[in-house]
């Protein structure tokens, strides 16, 4: 039973984080919250990729003298991809925060319903 579950636990973790992130982004009225949820969403994607890279019994993808077996190292490709993804995440967060500050400067609030209400006026 445990064997069955453990093999997919990481995927489920990623899925749960994704859902939390989605909920936060779509359901939370506060813009800062949305952005934090966005970061959680990105962690979910990263986690998913890292889980893909995993090999049972393998070590980190840095060469150890004398160990040349392919199965001995986890897959480095998803790691490289996720470094890029993290950078993308922080870039997006930065831009979003800039937008958010500008919105706050004008409306004095960060609650989406209030902003929409004032835009309608």
């Amino acid at each position, binding site marked *: 039973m445990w064997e069955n579950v453990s093999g997919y636990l990481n995927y489920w973790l990623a899925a749960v984080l*994704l859902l939390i992130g*989605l909920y936060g*982004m*779509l359901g939370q009225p506060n*813009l800062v919250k*949305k952005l934090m949820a*966005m970061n959680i*969403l*990105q962690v*979910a*994607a990263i986690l*998913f*990729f890292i889980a*893909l890279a995993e090999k049972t019994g393998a070590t980190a993808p840095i060469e150890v003298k004398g160990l040349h077996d392919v199965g001995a190292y986890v897959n480095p*490709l*998803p790691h490289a*991809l996720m470094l*890029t*993804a993290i950078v*993308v995440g922080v*870039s*997006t967060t930065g*831009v*979003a925060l800039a*937008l*958010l500050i*500008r*919105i706050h400067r*004008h*409306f004095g609030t960060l609650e989406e319903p209030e*902003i*929409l209400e004032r*835009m309608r006026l």
Partner: protein
Amino acid sequence: MTAHLPVLIVVLPLAAAVAVPLVALAFPKAAFAVACLALAAAGVASCAALSHVLAHGTLRYELGGWAPPWGIEYVVDPLSGGMGALITLIAVCVVVYAGPRANGGSAARSGMFHSLFLLLVTGLLGIVLTGDMFNLYVFLEISSLAAYALLASGGIRGTVATFRYLIVGTIAATFYLLGTGYLYALTGTLNMADMAARLTAVVDARAYGVAVVLTVIGLAIKAALFPLHGWLPDAYTYAPAPVTGFIAAVMAKVSAYALFRVLYFVTPAEGASAQALMLLGWVSVIAVLAGSILAMAQQDIRRMLAYSSVGQMGYIVLGFALGTPAALIGALLHLFGHAVMKGCLFLVVGGIQWRTGIYKISDYAGMGRRMPLTMAAFVVAALAMIGLPPTLGFFSKWYLLSGAVEARAWLFVAALVLSSLLGIVYFFRVFEFAYLKTPEAGQGTPPRQELPLHMLAPILVLTAAVLVFGLLNQQVVGGIIRHALPGALAP
């Protein structure tokens, strides 16, 4: 040098984007020239690449000298080459239109504006040319971030709209990334061609279906396919004119292109992608009608055009969904044509707003006399949107219709015809105001306020393109688009 054209198309605007802020600090006057030159150079490069591809077949480029699937590959085939040429053509027009004092006047700001514009172009070109799923994601993010900045550089309403777009866009990008992750998990590769070859073995996996769903949803959000279009109208409405002109013209189109790439060049024809296409077909029928109906309800001309874009994206996806050669030709021709037409329309509307502050349709009274050339361009482009001969819009609609008739998809036929009729209604409403109504009595005839040359010229170029490419559509179709069809359907 020809061998290096694929990468030059993308890297030239990138290099210029890096240079422009520095140049703007040192020689404020030169920054605009650098931007123009770089885009022109990229345009020349993409046209050269396209003609080379048409003569000698697909051009592949191994970045870093690493053979795919280990390295990243650029693929210039007639489809991506054509898209590249289209993007650079419109980019050159728009950057000239924006002019050296774009966005608020100060040299540094204008330098940043142009730099971000170049980055946007870089991102879109990268998406178009890449043959690697993850590289596509990276360039999708470059273009998205640049687009967020440009869209928000207008007023506060634009900023709020952009924030919403950013949230939705990030969800879309994450979905795409996850879809890529699923595909990678199933095939172990990121290279599109390699992936296509390896996917046939796993078509039956549930994870494959999910991969397709995630990828398609991600790209459909970016392409603003109804009902995932929520971000689009506000974002298009409140952005500065050149930005909307460019983004409305090509950005959603590039996402649609990516959708086409994935569904026709990466995923196998049977299985989940076929079901996804069928679903997209039905969705796009609703999109075509809903977009047109919503467009009719708008008072703000920019919103009207934005909703019309939603409908027109439906046309394109409808063609993808039908999947017959004629329908695909129609969709791709419309991809091209709609970019030119909508770009032209938004540039006109933006120019009018810039000159007179008018953006309500009811305030357009007398505009035909105030800005005769600009409005003439609007009329031509609008007639093309409706799909009247001999404009480009007619011919793409022709192919879509004949594809739908061939496939005996009568509902699609009806949707296409109905949406043309709705298009007549909402565009002729503008014509009536512009040409038949006179402004408030007592104000006399307003003076002529034609746009300055650097704004007018790109508009007229795009207008001419609508007509010329319409009459020469067989050259475009026969020379490029036919060769751009996926293997089984190409001649």
